[in-house]
């Protein structure tokens, strides 16, 4: 017994198999494990076993957005919140969380303007701050307000708060979006997530008591503050809140002109900023497909799904008409598709997006309404069926939108692929400008020989994963 036990507990050469049957199994084991064990492990088992993994290998780049060393426990979060994180498979804070959280949860409360790449844990960062500030003994007294630019994003944030807070007793999170707050009762939750217009209405109608709000979060802040209507609403909402409210502004992008305004909106804020060359997530392999002409884009699109393993995917298009046509073609090819654009009503949009979130459909075709913020962790491919453009007559490429679009994949350090379709001079030049601006190497794909293209795609995915500065981290949401 003792003999056997000792053999078992010794993690020697062959994993587990040698204990019971030393001779044959050990031989087999070595066969399988040759590369590592043979030279080092044959003699002194224990010493060779002490070879430590070179951690510098893993975490050489301290500036990686996902690099971090501390744990959530070290941040001093209450146990129910920590349990909620563990249940979500969150194990360690990301860079933005590790850096911003101590600043945000310290007292006295200080404003924050934080920028971090897509899929690096911004939402969790401000949600944790909100949860740490809410007094759960007053479950129906609004204490935190979070604003987002679309109902989808507001509902998503609501979901994240509920998930991380699932072990917090008495946590009530309400969504202040059209059609969800009862006119009779008004807002009865300690945390309120909403779109600016609806929130304004509720406050004006005195159905939302803001007298005890402690914290205001604005997600996708550059977008919110920059847009004509929404920017005004944000300003007005702020004017109605207590002066002491802590203001947090978050986004992956903060163009300079918006930054000045943001500083006025959130005075004396701590700031975490990035240069625009640092903005793209290294884990996303960015490629483009050279289409002979526009009419062939449909067929090429369908072919892409055989080239690599794809979980869910998002296809961005310019017009509702092409969204509908692509949907038809892809469904004929066996895909389950949600097509979501401005033509749909709120509730209907919710249902379509829920299908996609829950995995009932795995392809989402959308116009720009969903370029920002939407987080479905299994999205492994983003397609720019049309290059994002802005300005009069679409004359210049839309840099920010490109970044937000491709940021729908590669969440939390996962592998992601983005493929942009070009078919004429204009689309080619627009994409080139984007590539120059962000300093990215776009890989060209061609639809002529699919065997070759498949090989190329596989190589690109592999090499992007192996890139030295690609250091994903433990956050998965």
């Amino acid at each position, binding site marked *: 017994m003792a003999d056997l036990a000792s053999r078992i507990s010794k993690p020697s050469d062959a994993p587990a198999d040698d204990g019971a049957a030393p001779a044959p199994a050990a031989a087999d084991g070595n066969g399988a*494990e040759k590369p590592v064990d043979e030279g080092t492990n044959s003699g002194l088992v224990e010493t060779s076993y002490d070879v430590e993994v070179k951690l510098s290998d893993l975490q050489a780049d301290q500036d990686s957005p996902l690099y971090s060393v501390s*744990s959530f426990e070290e941040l001093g979060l209450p146990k129910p919140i920590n349990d909620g994180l563990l249940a979500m498979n969150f194990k360690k804070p990301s860079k933005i969380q590790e850096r911003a959280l101590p600043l945000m949860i310290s007292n006295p409360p200080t404003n924050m303007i934080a920028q971090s790449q897509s899929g690096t844990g911004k939402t969790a960062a401000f949600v944790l701050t909100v949860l740490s500030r809410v007094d759960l003994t007053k479950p129906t007294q609004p204490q935190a307000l979070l604003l987002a630019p679309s109902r989808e994003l507001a509902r998503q944030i609501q979901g994240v708060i509920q998930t991380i807070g699932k072990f917090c007793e008495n946590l009530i999170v309400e969504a202040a979006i059209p059609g969800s707050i009862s006119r009779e009762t008004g807002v009865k939750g300690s945390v309120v997530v909403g779109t600016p217009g609806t929130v304004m209405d509720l406050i004006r109608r005195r159905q939302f008591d803001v007298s005890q709000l402690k914290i205001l979060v604005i997600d996708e802040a550059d977008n919110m503050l920059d847009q004509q209507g929404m920017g005004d609403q944000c300003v007005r909402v702020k004017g109605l809140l207590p002066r002491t409210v802590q203001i947090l502004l978050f986004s992956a992008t903060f163009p300079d002109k918006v930054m000045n305004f943001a500083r006025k909106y959130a005075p004396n804020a701590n700031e975490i900023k990035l240069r625009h060359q640092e903005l793209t997530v290294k884990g996303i392999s960015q490629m483009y497909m050279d289409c002979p002409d526009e009419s062939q884009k449909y067929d090429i699109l369908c072919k892409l799904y055989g080239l690599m393993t794809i979980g869910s995917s998002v296809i961005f298009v310019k017009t509702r008409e092409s969204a509908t046509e692509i949907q038809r073609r892809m469904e004929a090819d066996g895909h389950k598709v949600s097509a979501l654009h401005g033509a749909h009503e709120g509730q209907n949009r919710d249902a379509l997006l829920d299908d996609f979130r829950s995995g009932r459909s795995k392809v989402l075709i959308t116009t720009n309404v969903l370029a920002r913020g939407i987080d479905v962790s299994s999205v492994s491919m983003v397609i720019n069926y049309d290059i994002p453009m802005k300005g009069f007559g679409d004359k210049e490429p839309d840099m920010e939108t490109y970044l937000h679009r491709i940021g729908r994949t590669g969440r939390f350090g*996962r592998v992601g692929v983005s493929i942009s379709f070009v078919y004429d001079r204009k689309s080619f030049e627009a994409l080139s400008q984007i590539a120059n601006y962000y300093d990215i190497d776009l890989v060209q794909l061609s639809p002529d020989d699919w065997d070759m293209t498949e090989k190329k795609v596989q190589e690109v995915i592999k090499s992007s994963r192996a890139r030295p500065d690609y250091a994903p981290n*433990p956050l998965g949401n």
Partner: protein
Amino acid sequence: MTGSSPSRGQSYHWATTSPQRTVLEEILSDDRNSEARHRFLLEAAKREHERVREEAERVYREQLQKEERQRLLDARRKEEERIRLEEELAADRARLNALKAKKIEIPPPLPEPEPSAPPTVNGKASAPALSEKPAPVQSNGATAKSVPASKPSAPPIPSPPQSQAPATALNKAPEPEKPANSVLSVNGLVNRTSRVAGATPDAGTSLPVPQQPIQARPDRYAEIHKNLKMLRKFMADQAKTNPALKGRMGDMRREIRKSVGQLTVTQGVAGVNKVQQQNIFKLLREALSNQVQSQLMDPSNFVLEPRNPVEGAAHNEPALPSIFLYLINIFAKAAISQFINESGARPETADPVGVCVVATLSEPDFLWRGVSLIDILLAKFRIVCPVLFGYRGNEKTEQGRQRLGWWKDSGRWVPEQQHMDRMTGLGAGFAAISLRNFAMSKKTNPYPPREYWAAMARIVNTPAAEISNTQCVVLKAMVEGYEQKFIEFYGTAAVEALRTALIEFPARAPQKSAAVNSLEVLARSLKRDTGLVLG
């Protein structure tokens, strides 16, 4: 009564007068008070009376019959219910006995567990089966001699410390079968019978053989894995000289990958993935027909044990088209890749892939000599997720990581999060494949639930000092979302196993890392969300 005799007036009219005569005429007629007429009327009234009575009697008889039928039906139902309850009771009791017996038996034996043992015990009554169990197991272990993988597997339920691991392992692996046995003896529940049925034929034919090797020589999987790489090269070479093959092979490969990627969560809706499933069948059948004239190849290179022809099998020939074996390989690869890339982020997406894998690899056309080619998939699993097969290692050492299946890219270890994502996806994928119910299927389950039990046992029986985060992550992914299926198969024994996995196992871990804690949090989530109390 009046209502039921509407014919009176009419019959009279009919008999005596023409239909056209009016009532008035009748009243005014001469023979109105004649005796004949009186008699006639009496006669008519009597006939009518009889008719009514007969009708009533007939209805009455019918009613009686109906009631009798209903009574019989109720009685039968009641009886069935009683039998069902009794069966359940018997099964539960058997399971309970099993548990008790097991606990007592833990200390003594040091032999190697043998999952194949259980089937042999099938016929036994529940209680005796329990005590008997260990015995067959041991003998099996003895014959098998080297039972390496099993060694890691230790007592599932037992609270005993690490040292006894191997001994208990025995008990553990066989255990799953116990409920089945007991049920069997009672002519059991569909569920279990079927499962046992799946196992029994195997025992008779070829399964036991492959089974043993699984435990005995885990590295056969590594060999298969190598052979599969050769196969890939072999196909590429063939394609150079065979334009028909070259023209079709890439398209077929991409079609398979696409179809596997299109599988979506069904949430109980049937037929959601039918198109994809049929497409995969179609491609594999096309490959079997070998229109592209690929060379033939001996499938023995890709299975655990040599196989002999089996009567009634669709394919008994010594070689199959290499394109078919290649596509099975591609299919397995696509499934594993889907687990890693998609289920790592969202474990629930593993389920439809598991269903598709098992449905495909159990399809009679795609069996070789009567047995599934699932070994090809398992060989990949063995390489990418060794902890399922009993391998252990220290995450802080090079060799330990290697043993745990920590991937390297361009000579560097992949980051921790990526590794843990992979393990999450693979753990969920393993559960999705091994916890399938074949009760309603004519096909044989290529990877029955006892494999799930055995894999869990191998992890939870790890000595405390050797518990790794990788194991915790795999274990959590195996359990989360599958607790209900597991309990459906193993009843109270499953609950006990879950307690071991989610309460005792993390409690034993020397370092309370996030991965370890997340097992305990899962136990709490189960309690909160499903009411399942383990602690």
